[in-house]
């Protein structure tokens, strides 16, 4: 049996037996990855993620079945929203007006209070109506890359006042390109240098915008 022969017609037989009462009439195929020689078939119903992995399909079908219950991320999001609403509500209730003119028809907290009550109401509604999403976006494969990107961009933003535009941009570019898998090492440094130089030239020299000099102020 090769990849093309193993079609969706074959799958229910395995899924019925191996995916713990999974009902084929409700299944929804969402992803088929053909990373030869392993073939992975994944699909989701409302509550479960099922995956069948086939090894060495040309000889024997070795099946490995993964199944996990989908957690309801929407409920968690709704709870976070509720907490945000409560924090704002607390701040609005404990607000003590300072110099606001009493003759104003609306106090400084009237309008925000309406918004907060609306927000809390909608969050509750969202919580009540939330259902597990069979097509949720899975970031398990990219979470490390995302974390790295956040850290690098955070480092760049933090170093900008200390190193100035040119130096911080150059360092950022080199690290970012390396981490993001840019493998042309001969070009890496020139690209980073040229980009940083271009931004410095345009903003600091041509447009005459005052940028932080950071530690380089001592070299002036």
């Amino acid at each position, binding site marked *: 049996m090769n990849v093309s022969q193993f079609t969706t017609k074959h799958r229910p037989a395995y899924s019925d037996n191996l995916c713990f009462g999974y009902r084929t009439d409700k299944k929804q195929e969402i992803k088929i990855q053909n990373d030869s020689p392993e073939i992975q078939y994944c699909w989701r119903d409302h509550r479960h993620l099922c995956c069948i992995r086939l090894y060495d399909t040309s000889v024997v079908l070795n099946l490995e079945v993964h199944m996990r219950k989908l957690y309801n991320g929407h409920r968690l999001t709704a709870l976070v929203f509720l907490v945000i609403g409560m924090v704002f509500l607390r*701040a609005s209730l404990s607000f003590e007006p300072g*110099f606001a003119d009493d003759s104003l028809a609306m106090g400084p907290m009237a*309008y*925000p209070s309406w918004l907060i009550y609306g927000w809390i109401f909608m969050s509750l509604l969202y919580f009540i*109506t939330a259902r597990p999403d069979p097509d949720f976006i899975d970031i398990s494969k990219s979470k490390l*890359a995302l974390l790295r990107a956040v850290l690098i961009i955070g480092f760049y933003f933090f170093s900008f006042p200390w190193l100035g535009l040119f130096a911080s941009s150059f360092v950022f570019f080199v690290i*970012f*390109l390396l981490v993001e898998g840019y493998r042309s090492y001969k070009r890496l440094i020139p690209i980073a240098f040229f980009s940083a130089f271009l931004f410095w030239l345009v903003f600091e020299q041509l447009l005459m915008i005052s940028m932080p000099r950071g530690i380089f102020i001592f070299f002036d």
Partner: protein
Amino acid sequence: MLNEILSAVSMTFSPMVVLILFVGVVFGAIIGAMPGLGTCVAIVVCLPFTLKLGPISAIALLMGVYGSSIYGGSISAVLINTPGTPQSAATGMDGYPMAKKGLSREALGWVTVASIVGGLLSCVALIVGAPQLAALSLKYGGPLEICGLICMGLACISSLSEGNQIKGILMGLGGLLLATIGNDPVSGEMRFLFGIEDLAGGISLMPVVVGIFPLAEVFWRIHETRSQEVVQPIRCNTLIFPRLKQWKGRVVNLIRSSMIGIGLGILPGVGATASTFVSYTTAKKFSKFGDRFGKGEPDGLIAAESSNNAITGGALIPTMALGIPGEPATALMLASMTLHGIIPGVRLMVDHPDVVYSSFILLIIANLLMIPAAFIVIRAFGYIINFPTPVLLGLIVICSLVGVYIPSGVFFDIPVALVMGIIAFAMRLGKFPVTPLLIGYVLGPQLEFNLSQAAIYMGDMTLLAYLGTSPLAIVLFSVAGLFLFMPILKPIMQLGKRVNPAG
């Protein structure tokens, strides 16, 4: 009006302004051609470059980018069957089959002409419509009516959010709530500082915009494409404009689709993508070549392209006349102009009509400059589409940082932008629409200010009695209420059905 137009022409036609406009058009088309980036990222990325330019030059750059980015998206839709912008999705349905038949140059010719005509017709609507709307607003627009209008716009945008409308409403409320941080626009009292003194002036617009669009896009691309595949576009170095006789039987489609684009562009929240598909299906229904749609029919291209470019002028009508944007791109245009001291709205139309008409003329020229820009972008498309993603993302991050820092010179805005980027990315993962968040944030201060004014005017009257003084406000609030409560009631009714299937 003629004097103002002539004055605007003299301000606009300087070699420097036209050159900047052309650069904007080419830049917009290039960014538009890169799948996933879109108009908003293009505007935000070029924003730092405008900050030291004069107002007219800055508007020229922005109008160039705004006008051409959707067109750029259509080039990739035709040549690689991947729309560069969501608005160009329908273009690929007929453009790519044409290109596969070896008619890529002809397809791009149809796309270019339809885009330009749609854009130009929308400019005419803008020149005629915006002053009329502003005049109407001056006549009938008290604080109550403005509140009604803002509420209606927000309700439309939130409730028309794809998928889950509750999410849209939550995001709209989130934007309004975010705008309340800092000082109260009426009394000047500080609110919601949570011990962070830097929040006293509120959260600036640029960190919000930069976080929501380019930074969230950078995170999204890192999540989505861990390895960049080299795309081989259909070879095409130029375009061939359709001959006059080829237009026989297609002009009506061109005008009808443009009108649909303009009309839906004026309405808040509908968006260019929806308008494109409305035009496409309408054209399919009425065209005598309807059975050929989806197989490489020029009428399909005309419908999609004229409509999505006609949106530009249509969407600018409420933005320029009332200062109320109906979509993220126009909200960004409004925000960008505000950074240059040009605050779109009724007062601008009355006090500085020359600036307003200059903007309109610049949009017209931007549409015309798409012809030379098209030749450049199409020739360079093979390089554009395979530009290394890490380099592109790195450049976007640097532009974002500079864009956040330059307007205010405040370091606090930089981490705020990063936090907003992470939040916007998380929202995107949860399929929350970010458009209502931005529009709510932009319109929030206006809404609060007008509500405060309305409350002062109301005096000792009851709310109902005060509302009774303005039938227009009643209509606007009713429409807003209708849009708001429909999506709220829908899931509750569905829940009732699920609990009691027999009933």
